[in-house]
């Protein structure tokens, strides 16, 4: 079996996961924390109740800090995600090298980076690039494992999608 070349230039889109797990700003912190634990997630994207705009991130860091700052442990039950979310959502485009985004994650001390689709002033969750996907990629031993991650999956270019949608020219 030929060894895989892990020095290949992967793009974020090769390793990202399309689809994002979310909660809303009024979700109780206890419930959101349960979601993190049950799904083994680092974070979830928090959506605004009014227009579903991406309002921030709630992750293990926010949960621990929220609990550490409580005067009474019982107050955990009354906290909502809106009280403790991290409002800065670090975004990257999907077509830059995955190694560069890995460095951004390290520099920003985050393990999840989101890709949002912005339309009409609203940031819609589109995809996520996770620390664990890098580990999964490094651990892959066969081309089949790499392909199962969606790496180098055929994707239409932006101009091809545009033509399909708006052109009558074949």
């Amino acid at each position, binding site marked *: 079996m030929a*060894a895989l*070349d*892990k*020095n290949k230039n992967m793009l974020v889109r090769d390793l990202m996961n399309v689809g994002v797990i979310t909660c809303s700003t009024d979700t109780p912190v*206890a419930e959101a*924390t*349960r979601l*993190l*634990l049950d799904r*083994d997630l680092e974070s979830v994207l928090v959506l605004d109740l009014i227009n579903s705009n991406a309002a921030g991130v709630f992750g*293990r*860091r926010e*949960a*621990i*800090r929220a*609990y*550490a700052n*409580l005067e009474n*442990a*019982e107050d*955990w*039950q009354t906290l909502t995600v809106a009280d403790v979310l991290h409002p800065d959502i670090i975004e990257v485009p999907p077509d830059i*090298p*995955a*190694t*560069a985004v*890995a*460095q951004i*994650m*390290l520099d920003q*001390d985050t393990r999840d980076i989101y890709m949002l689709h912005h339309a009409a002033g609203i940031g819609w969750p589109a995809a996520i690039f996770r*620390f*664990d996907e*890098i*580990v*999964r*990629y*490094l*651990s892959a*031993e066969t081309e089949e494992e790499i392909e199962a991650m969606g790496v180098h999956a055929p994707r239409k270019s932006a101009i091809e999608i545009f033509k399909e949608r708006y052109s009558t020219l074949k």
Partner: protein
Amino acid sequence: MTASAKQVRDLMHITATSCSADTLFLEAVRILHRNTIESLIVLDSHSRAIGMLSRLEAVQTYARSGIRTYNFDTLTVAEVMRSNIPQVSPNIPAISAAQIMLDQGLREIYVMPNKDGETSNPQPFGVLSINKVLSEINGVSNGEEG
């Protein structure tokens, strides 16, 4: 007892997965991925802890591969491991240990024997994970304490 009153010794687990310094880096990463664990303790031939390889070091190595070419076929754990093992005392509050982990970008921290009377580089006797602390917070606060 509330989660904030629990100490590291109350929540740590006592098994730590280990590898040797000459284990191939990619093999060590496979152990992390396939066992869904955060880190490996690196032991020398005398079973003394000499370093740690976690998902953080794996991603650091991957990030560096963007500006320098590694020979991943021969790269060993010794070349990329963290030699100062992040560690806490078993006698501090678990919530404080969790904050130490977050400050260092970690999701697990090792519990080492007190240094008095011990040889240097002792073997850790426990591991505390962020998830264990979060589970305790949620379990206790949801009235699930046994």
